[in-house]
């Protein structure tokens, strides 16, 4: 789960990472009130996606009137598919310098990495691409966490990467960074976050470190340990504002692993790798897959039915390709399930089934008898479904 900026900041505050004074506003009036209380404010769209500034979702307002006008513009705005439900009105900071400071998953090293860079404010992937030498990294011991001396070294490395900039107050920076990094790291552990970043981490004119913006992502596989928090944050984000694809939301509700892809050929298979490969085959034969749907290892008849039902919720779907590898599951069992599902769901679009493995011959017979096209090889099935769905209407 991705936290919104204000949600991330309330987590930062809970561990003692300083953030600007701010108020959440749902209306232009509330934004004006915030400006009356806080003075000059920055009005920021609360959407779980980067690049808000470029999209016009962040505006400076010096007066309550300006805050009202800015909020009126931003609320309800569409930012890359996300409708802005609320804005965060924060006291404008006196910015001397912007840093990046984050804890993230390093897949290559299979551990967490703490990154610090003086190229703050930019997306870290962009810095990693254009100027990787500007990012200093620390891989803490997973049991001990980052030690003070390691964090000082990280800061010195980041400073050296910008040529030991004399305008940066070194001793105050080191003194503030050590607890800040330790707090961020412990927050990442407490929340099971795979990303916990402050960007920009602002050095104010007075030399204080303040979190200008932040991102937190909680590991989906660890959400069971954070039920209450995840529910609370989810309710707070509100239905519809999450920007998730409605079909994917529905699939999640039904407990299915589904990704909406926008084409016309529905794809169902067992196993993530096999389904990805099936999508590739459809594309290789000139078709456009409508979705990814993995029914998992041991394909059961009931799951096959639920999957077909889900695929058909997408009105774009003109045909379905079912690709099943029968390992432990028997082909005849899957075939029986498929025929029943087709009849119960009154499926009229072309259905091409490729199955292989245990008792595939029996399975194929059942399919043929019921008028479903069985295919021996996956490429043959892909070409068949593309042929059956091209040109013709539903």
């Amino acid at each position, binding site marked *: 789960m991705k936290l919104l900026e204000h949600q991330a900041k309330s987590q930062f505050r809970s561990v003692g990472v300083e953030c600007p004074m701010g108020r959440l506003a749902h209306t232009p009036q509330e934004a004006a009130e915030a400006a009356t209380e806080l003075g000059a404010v920055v009005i920021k769209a609360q959407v779980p996606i980067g690049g808000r500034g470029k999209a016009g979702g962040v505006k400076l307002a010096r007066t309550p009137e300006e805050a009202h006008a800015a909020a009126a513009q931003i609320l309800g705005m569409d930012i890359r598919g996300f409708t802005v439900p609320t804005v965060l009105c924060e006291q404008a900071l006196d910015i001397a310098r912007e840093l990046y400071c984050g804890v993230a998953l390093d897949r290559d090293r*299979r551990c967490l990495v703490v990154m610090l860079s003086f190229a703050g404010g930019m997306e870290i992937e962009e810095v990693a691409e254009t100027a990787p030498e500007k990012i200093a990294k620390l891989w803490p011991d997973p049991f001990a966490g980052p030690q003070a001396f390691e964090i000082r070294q990280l800061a010195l490395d980041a400073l050296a990467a910008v040529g030991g900039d004399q305008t940066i107050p070194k001793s105050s920076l080191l003194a503030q960074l050590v607890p800040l990094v330790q707090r961020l790291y412990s927050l990442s552990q407490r929340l099971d976050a*795979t990303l916990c970043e402050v960007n920009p981490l602002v050095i104010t004119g007075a030399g204080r470190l303040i979190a200008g913006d932040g991102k937190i992502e909680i590991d*989906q596989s660890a959400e069971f340990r954070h039920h209450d928090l995840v529910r609370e944050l989810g309710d707070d984000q509100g239905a519809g504002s999450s920007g998730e694809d409605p079909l994917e939301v529905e699939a999640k509700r039904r407990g299915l692993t589904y990704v909406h892809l926008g084409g016309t050929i529905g794809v169902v298979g067992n196993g993530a790798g096999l389904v990805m490969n099936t999508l590739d085959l459809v594309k290789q034969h000139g078709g456009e897959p409508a979705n990814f749907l993995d029914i998992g290892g041991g394909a059961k008849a009931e799951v096959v039915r639920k999957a077909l039902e889900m695929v058909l919720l997408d009105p774009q779907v003109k045909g379905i390709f079912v690709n099943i590898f029968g390992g432990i599951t028997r082909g005849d069992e899957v075939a029986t399930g498929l025929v029943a599902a087709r009849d119960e769901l009154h499926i009229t679009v072309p259905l091409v089934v490729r199955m292989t493995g245990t008792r595939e011959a029996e399975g194929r017979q059942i399919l043929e008898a019921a008028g479903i096209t069985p295919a021996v090889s996956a490429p043959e099935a892909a070409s068949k479904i593309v042929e059956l769905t091209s040109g013709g209407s539903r």
Partner: protein
Amino acid sequence: MSILLNRDSKVVVQGMTGSEGTFHTQQMLEFGTQVVAGVSPGKGGGRHLGLPVFDSVAEAVGATGANVAAVFVPPPFAADAIMEGSAAGVDLVVCITELIPVNDMIRARAMIGRRGTRLVGPNCPGLMSPGDHAKVGIIPNQNGYPGHVGLVSRSGTLTYEMMQALSQSGYGQSTAVGIGGDPVLGLSFSDVLELFARDPETELVVMAGEIGGADEERAAELIGRGYPKPVVGFISGRTAPPGKRMGHAGAIISGNTGSATSKVEALEAAGVRVADTIEQIVDLVRDRIGVAPTRA
């Protein structure tokens, strides 16, 4: 004859009394694997499937000499089970469990790394050495056939498909290893490639990757530095959009890393021929090591 697992391997199954543990232990026994014990904390002293059940892996190892642990334990307890196996002194832990929290895996991996224990998985189908009648995990018994192709893959069912396609064309496997679909894994492609390089029974390696991470690129670097055996590659997820998790927790293109194109290019630059379909994998294997003896 094989890597990681052979006819002498003695396997203890953690979570053997659960439904998955029971079913797959039966399958492993049918295949010929030497399963010697099960572990279910609190159920020690009993028997299940004709095997002794212990309260801890340490007890099981002490009593039976088990040197491989198979983990069929639910996600909240799986990382602990991996560490327990390692602490009990087994050489290899194979973790089938899916959806283990990433932070748990980071710690488990660090802990077992200090002890030098090898880990296959998590979120994997396990491994099979058909010629040794040994398998640990959930690969269907009928898909393996003894031979000289080393297979390493991130996927489950796709691995079974490849094994079946290779077996039906007469290309058996020395060992097939499913390394898993998670972002934080035990053995990497490179680790397994190094083991196959030293295995006299392995003539050629088929390496099947997918989108996400940079393990395939690292393996390509290893192969590019000079690998003693031919390698045939395969990458799935060529049509996957960025930012979407394609079933496996690790199958996601984030920013500029993890695309299929980058992996295919890295492998081809290292001299690996990359197949577009499973059928083509068989053709490329034939190109490299010749026509296989007819399957019995």
